[in-house]
Protein backbone atom coordinates (compact mmCIF):
# COMPACT_ATOMS: atom_id res chain seq x y z
CA UNK A 1 0.00 0.00 0.00
CA UNK A 2 1.26 3.40 -0.89
CA UNK A 3 1.00 6.08 1.75
CA UNK A 4 0.18 9.50 0.53
CA UNK A 5 2.26 12.18 2.09
CA UNK A 6 0.06 15.16 2.55
CA UNK A 7 1.88 18.44 2.35
CA UNK A 8 0.12 21.65 2.95
CA UNK A 9 2.71 24.25 2.25
CA UNK A 10 3.24 27.16 -0.04
CA UNK A 11 6.51 28.19 -1.59
CA UNK A 12 6.66 31.43 -3.51
CA UNK A 13 2.86 31.46 -3.36
CA UNK A 14 2.62 28.07 -5.07
CA UNK A 15 0.87 25.14 -3.49
CA UNK A 16 3.21 22.23 -2.91
CA UNK A 17 1.46 18.95 -3.52
CA UNK A 18 4.26 16.51 -3.00
CA UNK A 19 7.90 16.21 -2.39
CA UNK A 20 9.70 16.52 -5.70
CA UNK A 21 10.76 13.17 -7.11
CA UNK A 22 14.45 13.93 -7.22
CA UNK A 23 14.47 15.12 -3.68
CA UNK A 24 16.17 18.31 -4.72
CA UNK A 25 15.39 20.78 -2.01
CA UNK A 26 15.42 24.45 -2.82
CA UNK A 27 17.28 26.08 0.08
CA UNK A 28 14.35 28.32 1.01
CA UNK A 29 11.99 25.36 1.17
CA UNK A 30 14.06 23.20 3.47
CA UNK A 31 12.06 24.08 6.53
CA UNK A 32 8.84 23.24 4.76
CA UNK A 33 10.08 19.78 3.90
CA UNK A 34 11.32 19.23 7.39
CA UNK A 35 7.91 20.01 8.73
CA UNK A 36 6.33 17.66 6.27
CA UNK A 37 8.08 14.77 7.99
CA UNK A 38 7.42 13.71 11.52
CA UNK A 39 10.97 12.47 12.00
CA UNK A 40 13.61 10.11 10.65
CA UNK A 41 11.26 7.10 10.65
CA UNK A 42 8.71 9.09 8.69
CA UNK A 43 11.39 10.11 6.20
CA UNK A 44 12.61 6.52 5.85
CA UNK A 45 9.09 5.31 5.25
CA UNK A 46 8.61 8.01 2.66
CA UNK A 47 11.78 6.99 0.84
CA UNK A 48 10.79 3.32 0.91
CA UNK A 49 7.30 4.02 -0.35
CA UNK A 50 8.45 6.54 -2.91
CA UNK A 51 10.90 4.16 -4.45
CA UNK A 52 8.56 1.22 -4.12
CA UNK A 53 11.05 -0.65 -2.00
CA UNK A 54 10.01 -3.81 -0.23
CA UNK A 55 9.98 -2.94 3.42
CA UNK A 56 10.81 -6.55 4.24
CA UNK A 57 13.84 -6.59 2.06
CA UNK A 58 15.20 -3.11 2.24
CA UNK A 59 18.18 -2.52 -0.03
CA UNK A 60 20.17 -0.86 2.68
CA UNK A 61 22.68 0.79 0.42
CA UNK A 62 20.15 2.64 -1.66
CA UNK A 63 18.13 3.68 1.33
CA UNK A 64 21.13 4.81 3.33
CA UNK A 65 22.52 6.85 0.45
CA UNK A 66 19.24 8.69 -0.12
CA UNK A 67 18.78 9.24 3.55
CA UNK A 68 22.29 10.66 3.98
CA UNK A 69 21.81 13.07 1.12
CA UNK A 70 18.71 14.37 2.77
CA UNK A 71 20.29 14.70 6.19
CA UNK A 72 23.27 16.59 4.77
CA UNK A 73 20.90 19.17 3.39
CA UNK A 74 19.01 19.66 6.60
CA UNK A 75 22.08 19.80 8.80
CA UNK A 76 22.88 23.24 7.55
CA UNK A 77 19.84 24.93 9.02
CA UNK A 78 18.16 22.71 11.59
CA UNK A 79 20.82 21.22 13.80
CA UNK A 80 18.65 20.31 16.74
CA UNK A 81 16.28 18.38 14.52
CA UNK A 82 19.13 16.90 12.56
CA UNK A 83 20.37 15.15 15.69
CA UNK A 84 17.55 12.63 15.50
CA UNK A 85 18.14 12.17 11.79
CA UNK A 86 21.88 11.73 12.41
CA UNK A 87 21.18 9.06 14.96
CA UNK A 88 19.17 7.24 12.33
CA UNK A 89 22.04 7.64 9.87
CA UNK A 90 24.39 5.98 12.31
CA UNK A 91 21.93 3.14 12.71
CA UNK A 92 21.55 2.69 8.96
CA UNK A 93 25.31 2.62 8.48
CA UNK A 94 25.68 0.11 11.28
CA UNK A 95 23.08 -2.16 9.72
CA UNK A 96 24.73 -1.85 6.36
CA UNK A 97 28.16 -2.71 7.72
CA UNK A 98 26.84 -5.71 9.62
CA UNK A 99 25.25 -6.99 6.44
CA UNK A 100 28.59 -6.89 4.70
CA UNK A 101 30.14 -9.21 7.26
CA UNK A 102 30.36 -12.92 6.44
CA UNK A 103 27.12 -14.69 7.35
CA UNK A 104 26.94 -17.61 9.72
CA UNK A 105 25.77 -20.81 8.07
CA UNK A 106 22.41 -20.86 9.87
CA UNK A 107 20.73 -17.57 10.13
CA UNK A 108 17.57 -16.77 11.96
CA UNK A 109 15.29 -13.90 11.61
CA UNK A 110 16.71 -12.29 14.70
CA UNK A 111 20.16 -12.29 13.16
CA UNK A 112 19.10 -10.14 10.28
CA UNK A 113 20.53 -6.76 11.18
CA UNK A 114 17.54 -5.13 9.48
CA UNK A 115 14.97 -6.85 11.67
CA UNK A 116 14.77 -4.20 14.39
CA UNK A 117 14.56 -1.40 11.85
CA UNK A 118 11.86 -3.19 9.88
CA UNK A 119 9.83 -3.75 13.03
CA UNK A 120 10.06 -0.07 13.96
CA UNK A 121 9.15 1.04 10.46
CA UNK A 122 6.12 -1.23 10.39
CA UNK A 123 4.98 -0.17 13.83
CA UNK A 124 5.37 3.45 12.87
CA UNK A 125 3.51 2.98 9.62
CA UNK A 126 0.67 1.20 11.40
CA UNK A 127 0.39 4.05 13.89
CA UNK A 128 0.59 6.63 11.16
CA UNK A 129 -2.34 5.03 9.37
CA UNK A 130 -4.25 4.63 12.61
CA UNK A 131 -3.74 8.33 13.31
CA UNK A 132 -5.16 9.18 9.89
CA UNK A 133 -8.21 6.98 10.49
CA UNK A 134 -8.68 8.43 13.94
CA UNK A 135 -8.53 11.91 12.50
CA UNK A 136 -11.12 10.91 9.92
CA UNK A 137 -13.65 9.98 12.61
CA UNK A 138 -16.35 12.55 13.23
CA UNK A 139 -15.44 14.58 16.27
CA UNK A 140 -17.55 16.53 18.71
CA UNK A 141 -17.04 20.20 17.97
CA UNK A 142 -15.95 19.47 14.40
CA UNK A 143 -18.45 17.23 12.63
CA UNK A 144 -20.65 16.42 15.60
CA UNK A 145 -22.93 19.04 17.11
CA UNK A 146 -24.42 18.02 20.43
CA UNK A 147 -27.89 19.15 21.46
CA UNK A 148 -27.65 21.85 24.08
CA UNK A 149 -30.95 23.64 24.33
CA UNK A 150 -31.29 26.23 27.05
CA UNK A 151 -33.00 25.69 30.34
CA UNK A 152 -33.72 27.98 33.23
CA UNK A 153 -31.26 27.01 35.90
CA UNK A 154 -33.19 26.73 39.09
CA UNK A 155 -30.99 27.05 42.10
CA UNK A 156 -32.05 24.06 44.04
CA UNK A 157 -31.32 24.37 47.71
CA UNK A 158 -30.05 21.01 48.70
CA UNK A 159 -30.81 20.38 52.33
CA UNK A 160 -27.80 19.66 54.44
CA UNK A 161 -27.40 16.11 55.51
CA UNK A 162 -27.31 15.80 59.25
CA UNK A 163 -26.58 12.66 61.16
CA UNK A 164 -28.08 11.60 64.43
CA UNK A 165 -24.64 11.87 65.97
CA UNK A 166 -24.47 15.52 65.09
CA UNK A 167 -27.86 16.10 66.65
CA UNK A 168 -26.78 14.33 69.81
CA UNK A 169 -23.55 16.26 69.94
CA UNK A 170 -25.56 19.46 69.69
CA UNK A 171 -27.85 18.35 72.48
CA UNK A 172 -24.91 17.39 74.62
CA UNK A 173 -23.37 20.78 73.99
CA UNK A 174 -26.55 22.48 75.11
CA UNK A 175 -26.74 20.46 78.28
CA UNK A 176 -23.12 20.96 79.17
CA UNK A 177 -23.57 24.68 79.01
CA UNK A 178 -26.90 24.67 80.80
CA UNK A 179 -26.63 25.07 84.56
CA UNK A 180 -29.70 23.03 85.36
CA UNK A 181 -28.31 19.84 83.87
CA UNK A 182 -30.28 17.36 85.91
CA UNK A 183 -33.61 18.75 84.82
CA UNK A 184 -32.77 18.08 81.22
CA UNK A 185 -31.74 14.52 81.42
CA UNK A 186 -34.21 12.85 79.15
CA UNK A 187 -35.10 9.22 79.29
CA UNK A 188 -36.59 7.20 76.49
CA UNK A 189 -39.89 7.00 78.33
CA UNK A 190 -39.99 10.74 78.65
CA UNK A 191 -39.34 11.11 74.92
CA UNK A 192 -42.30 8.89 74.16
CA UNK A 193 -44.45 11.06 76.34
CA UNK A 194 -43.17 14.22 74.67
CA UNK A 195 -43.84 12.73 71.25
CA UNK A 196 -47.40 11.97 72.24
CA UNK A 197 -47.81 15.46 73.63
CA UNK A 198 -46.93 16.86 70.21
CA UNK A 199 -49.25 14.41 68.47
CA UNK A 200 -52.18 15.27 70.73
CA UNK A 201 -51.57 18.98 70.22
CA UNK A 202 -51.58 18.48 66.46
CA UNK A 203 -54.80 16.51 66.65
CA UNK A 204 -56.51 19.13 68.78
CA UNK A 205 -55.31 21.88 66.48
CA UNK A 206 -56.86 20.09 63.56
CA UNK A 207 -60.06 18.78 65.10
CA UNK A 208 -60.75 21.41 67.76
CA UNK A 209 -62.47 19.44 70.51
CA UNK A 210 -61.73 15.74 70.85
CA UNK A 211 -63.28 13.26 73.17
CA UNK A 212 -60.84 11.87 75.70
CA UNK A 213 -61.40 8.25 74.72
CA UNK A 214 -60.91 9.04 71.04
CA UNK A 215 -57.26 9.81 71.78
CA UNK A 216 -56.67 6.19 72.72
CA UNK A 217 -56.50 3.57 70.05
CA UNK A 218 -57.25 0.61 72.27
CA UNK A 219 -57.55 -1.73 69.33
CA UNK A 220 -54.13 -1.43 67.80
CA UNK A 221 -51.96 0.01 70.54
CA UNK A 222 -50.55 -1.98 73.40
CA UNK A 223 -50.91 -1.09 77.02
CA UNK A 224 -47.52 0.67 77.33
CA UNK A 225 -48.50 3.06 74.55
CA UNK A 226 -51.88 3.76 76.13
CA UNK A 227 -50.14 4.59 79.37
CA UNK A 228 -47.73 6.88 77.56
CA UNK A 229 -50.65 8.59 75.86
CA UNK A 230 -52.36 9.11 79.19
CA UNK A 231 -49.17 10.50 80.70
CA UNK A 232 -48.92 12.87 77.75
CA UNK A 233 -52.44 14.17 78.42
CA UNK A 234 -51.64 14.68 82.08
CA UNK A 235 -48.43 16.50 81.21
CA UNK A 236 -50.25 18.71 78.73
CA UNK A 237 -52.82 19.55 81.36
CA UNK A 238 -50.15 20.22 83.93
CA UNK A 239 -48.30 22.55 81.57
CA UNK A 240 -51.60 24.29 80.88
CA UNK A 241 -51.52 23.45 77.20
CA UNK A 242 -54.89 21.69 77.07
CA UNK A 243 -58.19 22.27 78.67
CA UNK A 244 -60.13 19.25 79.92
CA UNK A 245 -63.86 19.57 80.40
CA UNK A 246 -66.69 17.37 81.53
CA UNK A 247 -70.30 18.57 81.76
CA UNK A 248 -71.35 16.15 84.45
CA UNK A 249 -70.19 12.98 86.07
CA UNK A 250 -70.04 9.99 83.70
CA UNK A 251 -70.52 12.16 80.64
CA UNK A 252 -67.78 12.20 78.03
CA UNK A 253 -64.59 14.06 78.82
CA UNK A 254 -63.45 16.51 76.17
CA UNK A 255 -60.02 17.92 75.45
CA UNK A 256 -59.32 21.15 73.62
CA UNK A 257 -56.41 23.45 73.20
CA UNK A 258 -56.20 25.93 75.98
CA UNK A 259 -57.91 29.11 74.96
CA UNK A 260 -59.64 27.54 72.00
CA UNK A 261 -63.16 28.88 71.39
Amino acid at each position, binding site marked *: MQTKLAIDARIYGQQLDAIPQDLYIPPDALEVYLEAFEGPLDLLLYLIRKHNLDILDIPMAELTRQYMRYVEKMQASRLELAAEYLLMSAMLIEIKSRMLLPKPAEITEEDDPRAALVRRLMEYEAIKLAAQRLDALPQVGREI*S*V*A*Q*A*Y*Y*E*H*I*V*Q*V*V*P*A*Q*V*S*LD*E*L*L*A*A*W*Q*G*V*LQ*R*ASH*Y*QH*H*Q*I*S*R*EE*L*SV*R*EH*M*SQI*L*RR*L*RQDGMVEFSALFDVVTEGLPKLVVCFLAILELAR*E*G*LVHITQQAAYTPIYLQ*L*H*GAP
Partner: protein
Amino acid sequence: MQEPENTTEMKRVLEAALLTCSEPLSLDDMLKLFAGRMERATLRMLLDELRADWQTGTLELVQVASGWRFQARAEYAPFIARLTPDRPQRYSRALMETLAIIAYRQPVTRGDIEEVRGVMVNPNIMRQLLERHWIDVVGQREVPGRPSLYATTRTFLDDFNLRTLSELPAMDDFQHPELQLDLQPHTPESPSMN
Protein backbone atom coordinates in the same frame (compact mmCIF):
# COMPACT_ATOMS: atom_id res chain seq x y z
CA MET B 1 -23.29 18.69 0.91
CA GLN B 2 -26.39 19.51 -0.99
CA GLU B 3 -28.09 22.85 -0.38
CA PRO B 4 -31.62 22.33 0.94
CA GLU B 5 -34.08 22.20 -1.93
CA ASN B 6 -37.34 23.07 -0.29
CA THR B 7 -38.66 24.83 2.79
CA THR B 8 -39.19 21.53 4.61
CA GLU B 9 -35.50 20.73 4.31
CA MET B 10 -34.60 24.31 5.22
CA LYS B 11 -36.71 24.10 8.33
CA ARG B 12 -34.88 20.92 9.32
CA VAL B 13 -31.48 22.61 8.90
CA LEU B 14 -32.78 25.47 11.02
CA GLU B 15 -34.07 23.14 13.71
CA ALA B 16 -30.83 21.13 13.89
CA ALA B 17 -28.82 24.35 14.23
CA LEU B 18 -31.08 25.86 16.89
CA LEU B 19 -31.05 22.65 18.92
CA THR B 20 -27.27 22.34 18.91
CA CYS B 21 -26.16 25.94 19.44
CA SER B 22 -25.62 26.98 23.01
CA GLU B 23 -26.22 30.66 22.24
CA PRO B 24 -29.36 32.18 20.73
CA LEU B 25 -29.12 32.55 16.95
CA SER B 26 -29.82 35.92 15.39
CA LEU B 27 -31.56 36.20 12.03
CA ASP B 28 -28.17 37.03 10.51
CA ASP B 29 -26.66 33.89 12.00
CA MET B 30 -29.47 31.82 10.60
CA LEU B 31 -29.08 33.35 7.14
CA LYS B 32 -25.45 32.14 7.23
CA LEU B 33 -26.73 28.56 7.51
CA PHE B 34 -28.06 28.86 3.97
CA ALA B 35 -25.04 30.64 2.51
CA GLY B 36 -27.15 33.57 1.37
CA ARG B 37 -29.80 31.49 -0.38
CA MET B 38 -32.54 32.49 2.02
CA GLU B 39 -34.85 35.46 2.22
CA ARG B 40 -35.41 37.12 5.59
CA ALA B 41 -39.16 36.86 5.11
CA THR B 42 -38.94 33.11 4.44
CA LEU B 43 -36.74 32.69 7.47
CA ARG B 44 -39.27 34.43 9.71
CA MET B 45 -42.02 32.27 8.30
CA LEU B 46 -40.00 29.11 8.93
CA LEU B 47 -39.31 30.20 12.50
CA ASP B 48 -43.04 30.69 13.06
CA GLU B 49 -43.71 27.24 11.64
CA LEU B 50 -40.99 25.72 13.79
CA ARG B 51 -42.45 27.34 16.87
CA ALA B 52 -45.84 25.89 15.99
CA ASP B 53 -44.30 22.44 15.36
CA TRP B 54 -42.95 22.45 18.91
CA GLN B 55 -46.17 23.78 20.45
CA THR B 56 -46.68 20.57 22.38
CA GLY B 57 -43.02 19.60 22.56
CA THR B 58 -40.75 19.40 25.57
CA LEU B 59 -38.87 22.46 24.36
CA GLU B 60 -40.22 25.76 23.11
CA LEU B 61 -38.74 28.06 20.53
CA VAL B 62 -38.49 31.50 22.07
CA GLN B 63 -37.18 34.85 20.95
CA VAL B 64 -34.85 36.59 23.36
CA ALA B 65 -32.85 39.80 23.07
CA SER B 66 -30.02 38.34 21.02
CA GLY B 67 -32.01 35.97 18.88
CA TRP B 68 -33.89 32.70 18.91
CA ARG B 69 -33.30 29.64 20.99
CA PHE B 70 -34.93 26.41 22.05
CA GLN B 71 -35.42 26.08 25.75
CA ALA B 72 -36.91 23.44 28.01
CA ARG B 73 -40.45 24.26 29.13
CA ALA B 74 -40.49 25.62 32.65
CA GLU B 75 -42.12 22.49 34.05
CA TYR B 76 -39.02 20.41 33.21
CA ALA B 77 -36.44 22.76 34.71
CA PRO B 78 -36.79 21.43 38.27
CA PHE B 79 -36.08 17.89 37.05
CA ILE B 80 -33.08 18.98 35.01
CA ALA B 81 -31.81 20.91 38.03
CA ARG B 82 -31.53 17.59 39.86
CA LEU B 83 -28.69 16.61 37.54
CA THR B 84 -26.43 19.35 38.85
CA PRO B 85 -27.25 19.69 42.50
CA ASP B 86 -25.64 22.54 44.30
CA ARG B 87 -23.36 21.57 47.08
CA PRO B 88 -25.34 20.79 50.18
CA GLN B 89 -25.09 23.50 52.75
CA ARG B 90 -23.94 22.82 56.27
CA TYR B 91 -26.09 23.68 59.19
CA SER B 92 -24.77 25.90 61.95
CA ARG B 93 -24.19 24.72 65.47
CA ALA B 94 -26.91 27.12 66.62
CA LEU B 95 -29.39 25.44 64.30
CA MET B 96 -28.44 21.98 65.45
CA GLU B 97 -28.76 22.94 69.09
CA THR B 98 -32.14 24.52 68.48
CA LEU B 99 -33.29 21.40 66.70
CA ALA B 100 -31.99 19.22 69.51
CA ILE B 101 -33.88 21.23 72.11
CA ILE B 102 -37.10 20.99 70.10
CA ALA B 103 -36.60 17.25 69.59
CA TYR B 104 -35.89 16.45 73.24
CA ARG B 105 -38.10 19.00 74.98
CA GLN B 106 -41.06 19.31 72.64
CA PRO B 107 -43.42 20.99 72.57
CA VAL B 108 -41.43 24.14 73.27
CA THR B 109 -41.74 27.85 72.65
CA ARG B 110 -38.98 30.15 71.49
CA GLY B 111 -38.78 31.36 75.05
CA ASP B 112 -38.05 27.81 76.20
CA ILE B 113 -35.29 27.47 73.64
CA GLU B 114 -33.80 30.80 74.63
CA GLU B 115 -33.87 29.81 78.26
CA VAL B 116 -31.92 26.63 77.61
CA ARG B 117 -29.42 28.13 75.18
CA GLY B 118 -29.05 31.39 77.01
CA VAL B 119 -29.19 33.38 73.78
CA MET B 120 -31.89 34.79 71.54
CA VAL B 121 -33.20 32.44 68.87
CA ASN B 122 -32.28 33.63 65.40
CA PRO B 123 -35.56 33.85 63.43
CA ASN B 124 -33.70 32.51 60.36
CA ILE B 125 -33.00 29.30 62.20
CA MET B 126 -36.67 28.74 62.99
CA ARG B 127 -37.54 29.57 59.38
CA GLN B 128 -34.95 27.11 58.07
CA LEU B 129 -36.23 24.37 60.34
CA LEU B 130 -39.83 25.06 59.31
CA GLU B 131 -38.92 25.14 55.59
CA ARG B 132 -37.06 21.88 55.96
CA HIS B 133 -40.29 20.48 57.48
CA TRP B 134 -38.36 19.22 60.48
CA ILE B 135 -40.50 21.21 62.93
CA ASP B 136 -43.95 22.69 62.93
CA VAL B 137 -46.24 24.66 65.16
CA VAL B 138 -48.50 22.39 67.17
CA GLY B 139 -50.27 24.98 69.31
CA GLN B 140 -49.87 28.05 71.47
CA ARG B 141 -49.04 28.29 75.11
CA GLU B 142 -51.70 30.16 76.99
CA VAL B 143 -49.50 32.81 78.46
CA PRO B 144 -49.36 36.47 77.51
CA GLY B 145 -48.39 36.75 73.87
CA ARG B 146 -49.62 33.18 73.19
CA PRO B 147 -46.22 31.99 71.89
CA SER B 148 -46.19 29.18 69.36
CA LEU B 149 -45.32 25.70 70.50
CA TYR B 150 -42.91 23.84 68.25
CA ALA B 151 -42.52 20.10 67.82
CA THR B 152 -40.64 17.83 65.45
CA THR B 153 -42.41 16.20 62.51
CA ARG B 154 -42.57 12.88 60.71
CA THR B 155 -40.14 14.28 58.14
CA PHE B 156 -37.68 14.87 60.94
CA LEU B 157 -37.99 11.23 62.00
CA ASP B 158 -37.65 10.05 58.41
CA ASP B 159 -34.60 12.16 57.73
CA PHE B 160 -32.89 10.93 60.87
CA ASN B 161 -33.90 7.38 60.18
CA LEU B 162 -35.98 7.04 63.32
CA ARG B 163 -39.34 5.40 63.77
CA THR B 164 -40.31 7.23 66.92
CA LEU B 165 -38.80 9.92 69.09
CA SER B 166 -38.09 7.31 71.72
CA GLU B 167 -35.40 6.01 69.39
CA LEU B 168 -33.46 9.20 69.99
CA PRO B 169 -30.73 8.01 72.31
CA ALA B 170 -31.22 9.05 75.87
CA MET B 171 -28.51 11.15 77.43
CA ASP B 172 -26.90 8.32 79.38
CA ASP B 173 -26.38 6.44 76.12
CA PHE B 174 -23.50 8.63 75.24
CA GLN B 175 -21.91 9.44 78.53
CA HIS B 176 -18.36 8.91 77.28
CA PRO B 177 -18.82 5.21 76.60
CA GLU B 178 -15.13 4.82 75.94
CA LEU B 179 -14.24 6.12 79.38
CA GLN B 180 -16.04 3.42 81.34
CA LEU B 181 -12.98 2.15 83.11
CA ASP B 182 -14.35 2.08 86.62
CA LEU B 183 -13.96 -1.40 87.95
CA GLN B 184 -15.62 -0.65 91.22
CA PRO B 185 -19.25 -1.19 91.95
CA HIS B 186 -21.10 1.52 90.20
CA THR B 187 -21.46 4.56 92.41
CA PRO B 188 -23.54 7.57 91.56
CA GLU B 189 -21.59 9.83 89.29
CA SER B 190 -20.61 13.34 90.19
CA PRO B 191 -23.22 15.04 92.38
CA SER B 192 -24.17 17.54 89.73
CA MET B 193 -25.41 14.75 87.55
CA ASN B 194 -28.19 13.49 89.70
